[in-house]
């Protein structure tokens, strides 16, 4: 019945916390909480989303008590940056740089994204959750998932393009 593996929880935790030791603590804490509140889990609902929700809450609680990354504030700042970018963005359908990505580039780029975008991209693109599941985990409407996903992917693309330039795969004038 529980089809989410510990591995998936661990992978998400590493990318949320950007730190392996901390990720291990988060996963451990989340599994114990899942165990303690299992009687409240509604078997008709999605187990995977339920577990990721617990994991995320554990992570956010730690962040808040430590006074670090705050997701909502970051989104606000980026909204404005993105608006400015959007006007002159020319989508390039070729994107040869995708073929040139080195092992680890995607992860490196992902960790540079602000939390709100990182978690949306992570859950949909890396772990394969549906929009509805992600909306459940992030406790927000599906429309918000879609807009965060879209901005997250755009930021990720841009970071990857930057790496491709650093590796010398694409010319500066791109």
């Amino acid at each position, binding site marked *: 019945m529980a089809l989410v593996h510990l*591995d998936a929880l661990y992978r998400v935790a590493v990318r949320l916390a950007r730190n392996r030791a901390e990720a291990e603590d988060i*996963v451990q804490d989340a*599994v114990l909480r899942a*165990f303690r509140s*299992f*009687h409240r889990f509604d078997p008709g609902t999605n187990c995977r989303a339920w577990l990721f929700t617990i994991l995320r809450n554990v992570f956010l609680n730690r962040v808040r008590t430590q006074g670090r990354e705050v997701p909502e504030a970051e989104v606000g700042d980026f909204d404005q940056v993105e608006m400015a970018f959007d006007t002159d963005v020319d*989508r390039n359908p070729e*994107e040869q740089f995708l073929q040139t990505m080195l092992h680890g580039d995607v*992860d490196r780029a992902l960790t540079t994204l602000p939390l709100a975008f990182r978690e949306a991209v992570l859950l949909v693109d890396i772990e394969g959750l549906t*929009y509805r599941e992600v909306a459940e985990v992030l406790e927000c409407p599906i429309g918000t998932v879609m807009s965060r996903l879209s901005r997250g992917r755009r930021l990720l693309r841009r970071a990857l393009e930057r790496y491709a330039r650093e590796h010398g795969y694409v010319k500066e004038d791109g």
Partner: protein
Amino acid sequence: MNCSEIQARLAAYVDGEMAVSQIAAVEGHCLECRHCAALVRAEREFRQLLRRQPREAAPAELRTRILRQVRREAALAKGRRWLPASAVAVAAAVVVALLLSARTPPLVADLVDKHIAYANVERPTELASTDRREVAEWFRSRTGLRVTVPDYSPSGIHLAGARLAEAHERQAAYLLYEKGRTLLSVFMVPLPASGGTLRGDRVRYRDQEYVTYERKGFRTVSWTDDQAVYALVSMLDYDALLECADRLRQERAQQTRL
């Protein structure tokens, strides 16, 4: 739909989150518009790049540590009796299963469990459809997978729908058929599927090799070609399952020739 409408919905389309009724409009447009078609391709490639990322496992030491702690908690909870013992046992079993599931049971055994799980939920499919073409199209737009949707209607086995399943951390295609009240699950797990060789008895049917295997009262017939592992799971008898397997193989061969 015009270009800007298409581009606004590009992500939902490529993510397989678009209503089936709109998919045809996007595809019609992309046949005519090379720019939008190229954008769709680029979006797909980007998604595939992300999906191809190595999927690391949790450290074994972490798994052991958590298991130990869950067992300790279960023992304590039983002692305190703040929950019925049966609830504690279920919770502990589920959490332990969750942790151990990463130890990778044989692929087909995993698929039988999925068949049972799907049979017990209200909506076993994500796409309820009896239209083979629509189902194939749904997989293609959602995952880029070319899934063969065999026609079993001459044997009285009818398509009920499809979903994306996960098997051994790989995205798999799942087709659900019904013969009266008996369900037939067809899984296609793209290679490389982990789990080594298929478990069970080797049989030959119409000059092809299959593996049969029974678990929890369900019969399975599975085989591998150069693209995927295929498995049929049902309460139907082996003759019917082998017939269905042969049919799928033939249709698959026909499709790849095209």
